[in-house]
């Protein structure tokens, strides 16, 4: 399978390389940009990144498997990340995640990320999102939401078109 990077993205990536004395340093920023564009990081994307940064594919693969934010398969159009850690748990994040799962027909007893059949939503637990004072907190794609009640959760789901 061929892997092509649009000209615009490649220009952006080339610029990123100039930020560092060593090309390898740009790896994480590369993977972020690729994931944002393609939705996930394919083996071909890893090979392409490795070549671009003068690395072996394993040097990129080990990053994708180490850093929790990177994913190797396409998830839902809207990714709902519910904070699981203590302050949010005390603020009701488990019940909130259950609510999301129920609303979307997912199995709340499963801990790992789950995607709805139509590919629209993925719900998962993540670790501390550093906003413990406004628990429970949720990220939907790049948007951050604080003090999410069940009612607010429904509103947020309604906004996902």
């Amino acid at each position, binding site marked *: 399978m061929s892997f092509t990077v649009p000209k615009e993205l490649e220009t952006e990536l080339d610029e990123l390389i100039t*930020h*560092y*004395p*060593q090309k*390898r*340093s*740009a*790896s*994480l*920023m590369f*993977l*972020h940009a690729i994931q944002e564009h393609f939705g996930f990081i394919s083996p071909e994307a890893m090979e392409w990144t490795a070549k671009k*940064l003068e*690395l072996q594919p394993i*040097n990129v693969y*080990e*990053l994708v498997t*180490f*850093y*929790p*934010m*990177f994913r190797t398969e396409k998830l839902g159009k809207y990714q709902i990340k519910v904070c*699981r*850690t*203590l*302050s949010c*748990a*005390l603020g009701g994040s*488990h019940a909130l*995640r*259950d609510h999301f799962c129920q609303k979307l027909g997912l199995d*709340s*007893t*499963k*801990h790992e990320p789950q995607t709805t059949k139509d590919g629209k939503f993925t719900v998962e*637990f*993540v*670790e*501390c*999102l*550093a*906003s*413990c*004072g*406004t*628990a429970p907190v949720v*990220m939907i794609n*790049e948007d*951050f939401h604080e003090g999410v009640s069940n009612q607010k959760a429904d509103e947020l789901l309604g906004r996902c078109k």
Partner: protein
Amino acid sequence: MSQEYRLILKNADQPGYTTDMDCYLRHGGYGALKKALALPVKDLPDGKKMTAQEQIREDVKASGLRGRGGAGFSCGLKWSFVDRKSGKPIYLICNADESEPGTFKDRQIIYKDPHQLVEGMIISCFANDVHLAYIYIRGEMPDGARILKKALADARAKNFLGKNILGSGYDLEIYVHRGAGAYICGEETGLIESLEGKRAYPRIKPPYFPAVLGLYMCPTIVNNVETLAAVKHIVTMGSAEYAKLGTPNNTGTRIVSVSGQVKKPGYFEVEVGKATIGELIFHEKFGGGLKDGRKLKAIIPGGSSSKVFKAGEKFKLKRKGADGQMTAVEVDMLDLPYDFDSLQQAGSMSGSGAIIVVDDSTDIVSVLANLSEFYAHESCGQCTPCREGSLWMNKALHRMSHGHGRKQDADYLLNIAQNIQGRTICAFGEACAWPVLSFVNKFKDEFVAKGAADEAKNHGGAGPTNEMKIAASPRAD
């Protein structure tokens, strides 16, 4: 003294205050940078000369500023360790990987007053002859990264960054670098590995002290967001004025994050040591007390890695009496001044300045189970005791919090934790062991009772059936 003292967050929450350059300039922004760059060479009594850079470094040391990220180490001393004779470039990295559970203070600076961080950083870079610096921001703050990028671009446009800054002959570039969801990147050598494009496996010290062998094996300074923001104020006020804030050896202000089961969770900037833990939790101006009808059970005083305090716990603190003699004073946990030294004397730490409050409606076993799951998820996997131990503790606690405890679990947990601490490359070993050690030791009766009750309940149904039940049970605590 129960009130906020807003120095770093002075403008952040004011109506109309934005993250724009113009707004920052209207509020006197970049004045400290101009002052720093224009400092004349100082003649010392012994005939030697002190450069502007040396003066700033000396000032930061004299201010008593201690790192706000977790360890509370003297910032000036950290800077003084930098190898300036190696001939290699010196790097500075701002640690904006805020991810210690309970902590949400750097977020306020980054999202509401980014130029303050940028200014503090430029001054710190100037003082340490740094020409290339990075802000390592956690991946889950995409907006924060965008805000900082814009702030840096605007600073470049005004020549606060780039070549020959404001005609001083000093060059500096700062770039934003995003993490990707790994807590271990907050550990400074792990952060450096990550910035080099590798897995964030912390490096062993010695020999890899960042001040000597840091980024690309060059001398490197890693400072927390709040610490760098404080540098700006030290330059503006002068070290003597800054050191008047707070208490001796615990100078300046600190942004304390209060979360968990309080009425008004939030962040509060206070003079270090001028408010007690009790005030921060109960006072109307801070946490506002517990929810109605609840009693205090425990608090985690300095981020999830710090050792827990049990309600009613008493500590002996060394205090200087009126006659100058040191005497031991008994202090209730709630009356501990919230500073670096008092919490250390009480056997814990103020860490990242994050208080998590737990009331009596909460099962303490499930609280520890929640934290242990965090550490099991975040262990980088490099050192065996931590990689395996954090998972064992998590499994045992998960089992306990799902009705399958055993009487001996308390001692089992303690045994694992004791075999992790001190046996790992980085402080994560302690970070995952300390909560277990302190929770189980201080609430041992509850852990044992839980195990005994579960055993009685499950009597006769032991063996594989139970294990299968556990495997099928939801992991949600």
